[in-house]
């Protein structure tokens, strides 16, 4: 292989963060004392030195063009000496030490079509993934789903009126590149039909032993079809995880008639009060109904509504459900409880109710 012409710059890593810090932040690094919410989307952090930094949080679809980023950059120049950041939920945060700049900034942001909010006991941005926009594995499109859902939940982003934070995530397949497995509410794209096997190409594009062993339920067996080495799938054993497809492109699993969306609830990540917990199945299947997935947005709205009505302050969705009990959750939402809700994978038994502690309504 030919050497590159100039000495190639590699392994330099990301730029050092210090150059991107607002001078007030640099000065008070590690010295912050407390914070207060001034209004939805606006926080002030106060330092031991008495210095203050104001943060204005702006909702973003995450899938944004360079033009939108440039618009944010312009606003940062105008109001924040050029300083801004993104959050772990893909919101934008403008940072300024000038309290007077807050309201004008907000006006400009809103004029540009972007909402301010997402702090404290609100619904912040939805963590999500690629969907049909970029991924080969997607069972649904999350960009559209998220847009439709956030339209529906908009009031909860721009106001702080819920019992506590509600963290929502969406992922387009069981790989769960979003934070689906530990979210207050999660939207998950699912397949429901075993992979279709392209017998002609399996032996060319896939390593058959790897493919066979990729299946968590041992549903895949090697076989020969018309003289060609290939694999077959025992449909009864398949639970549609698509791990086979990940290792073998000749086993596409996406299927317009059967792909759809499942809804999950009650997970969390923080260690506050209760330990982190996994999200649990609320609705096993809703149809893929683009462009606005009304069945999905209705279901999520329903969950948020009953949570808002029933939970105590500082109770996350999962903590609330644990207090009232799962039977009550299904009762309040009207969601049907089916055999699909009952775990039957590896450690299924650990989820069975093993006490006589039962609530009767």
């Amino acid at each position, binding site marked *: 292989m030919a050497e590159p012409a100039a000495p190639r710059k590699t392994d330099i890593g990301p730029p050092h963060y210090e150059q991107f810090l607002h001078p007030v932040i640099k000065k008070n690094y590690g010295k912050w004392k407390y914070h207060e919410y001034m209004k939805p989307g606006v926080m002030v952090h106060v330092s031991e030195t008495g210095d203050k930094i104001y943060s204005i949080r702006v909702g973003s679809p995450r899938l944004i063009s360079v033009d939108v980023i440039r618009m944010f950059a312009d606003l940062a120049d105008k109001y924040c000496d050029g300083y801004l950041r993104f959050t772990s939920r893909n919101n934008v945060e403008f940072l300024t030490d000038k309290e007077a700049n807050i309201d004008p900034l907000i006006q400009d942001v809103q004029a540009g079509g972007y909402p301010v909010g997402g702090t404290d006991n609100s619904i912040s941005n939805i963590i999500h993934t690629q969907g049909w926009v970029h991924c080969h594995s997607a069972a649904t499109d999350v960009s559209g789903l998220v847009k439709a859902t956030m339209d529906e939940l908009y009031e909860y982003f721009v106001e702080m009126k819920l019992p506590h934070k509600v963290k929502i995530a969406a992922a387009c397949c069981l790989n769960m590149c979003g934070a689906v497995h530990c979210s207050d509410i999660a939207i998950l794209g699912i397949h429901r039909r075993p992979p279709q096997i392209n017998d002609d190409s399996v032996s060319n594009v896939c390593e058959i032993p790897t493919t066979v062993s990729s299946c968590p339920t041992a549903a895949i067996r090697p076989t020969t079809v018309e003289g060609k080495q290939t694999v077959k799938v025992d449909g009864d054993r398949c639970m549609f995880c698509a791990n086979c497809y990940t290792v073998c492109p000749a086993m596409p699993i996406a299927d317009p008639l059967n792909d759809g969306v499942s809804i999950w609830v009650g997970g969390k990540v923080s260690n506050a009060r209760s330990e982190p917990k996994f999200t649990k199945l609320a609705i096993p299947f809703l149809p893929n109904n683009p462009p606005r997935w009304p069945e999905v947005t209705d279901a999520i709205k329903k969950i948020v509504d009953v949570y808002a009505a029933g939970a105590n302050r500082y109770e996350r969705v999962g903590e609330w459900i644990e207090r009232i009990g*799962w039977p009550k959750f299904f009762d309040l939402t009207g969601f049907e409880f089916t055999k699909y809700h009952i775990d039957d994978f590896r450690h299924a038994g650990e989820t069975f*109710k093993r006490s006589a502690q039962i609530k009767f309504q």
Partner: protein
Amino acid sequence: MADHKLRETPLLDELKKGPWPSFVSDMKKMAERKPMVNDLLGQLELSYKEKKGHWKHGGLVGVMGYGGGIIGRYSDAAKEFPACAHFHTVRVNQPSGWFYTSAALRELCDIWDRHGSGMTNMHGSTGDCVFLGTTTDELEPIFAELTEKDWDLGGSGSDVRTPSCCNGMARCEYACYDTMDACYNITMEYQDELHRPAFPYKWKFKFSGCPNDCVASIARSDLSVIGTWRDEIRIDQAAVKEYADSGMEIRANVIRKCPTSCMSYDGKEITIDNKNCNRCMHCINVMPKALRPGTDTGATILIGGKAPIIEGALLATVLVPFIKMNKDDDYQEFKDLMERIWDFWDEHGVNRERIGECIERVGLGNFLEAIEVDPLPEHVHHPRTNPYIFYEEYFEEVDDAEAQKA
């Protein structure tokens, strides 16, 4: 006094000391008139010396027509201890709640004194009155004398094991159904299943009158019936006041220990948010004079409890959140359910696999479907967390999908 030489047991003699009653002292006395016990002591002393048991593996013995009720046992040191060369046990089905009269006990003692070692377990862990140590020859005579006096054998092997129950309504104010009647009725119903092993593995029934579960049914039975109620806890506020006056710390010991935080106490009266109460019994246990279970009583049925062999221990899991344990219709609902479960077990059970393990293998959802019980959120601690759902249907054609929609 003994017409045989008493064994020296210096190690065991150490267990004659101390305040707790000593089985060694007792056995030593029996050894004087029972050579079998004398040799048993000798063999046990050897075990204490060698740190090793001296019984051979199993041994199939029994009484005619029965497949269970007797545990065969032979010594591997029979040369040295010939009197306990055979040392089988007889499991006698105890009466509900382990109630006896002195006369009944003497009846049993006399039979056993005539035909066996005279040593017993009152009672075995499953609940039987266990006669410890006899020879094969004695089994038929023992059985004849027992049945003559209206006693029968209990279970062993892959059959219904001797059911047991707490004393329930006989002496407990908490009993939410008649455990003793249910236990008796079900024992009588399944005499054939109890005496003739035909299951994949053992099957244990245990009946507790309330969630205190005084026969450990949730941990130690395949089918656990635990009394409960659906309506409101009965409160006698005057008695609450009495407890308070007598110095009980109601807030610390009752209110704050309520697992659902559904109780409150204003210094005078207790209020309970009954729809959040999970029937744990704690408050009632602490203040039985003031609080009582409701009056719409029945039971929760749980399935699959067991010890660790083979896949690890299991606590029983909720099968029917609430059932009326109805004497008047002879517990028909319960028995119908049992029939469907045993049909399923017959078809899907594997040798030496308890029902709890079988359900985990087959899937609780599939099991419920097979026995025609609707899946309920009460069946689970929480719904599944993994996305590995075995959807059972998919559309092959657009038309199917459209049809579904309509």
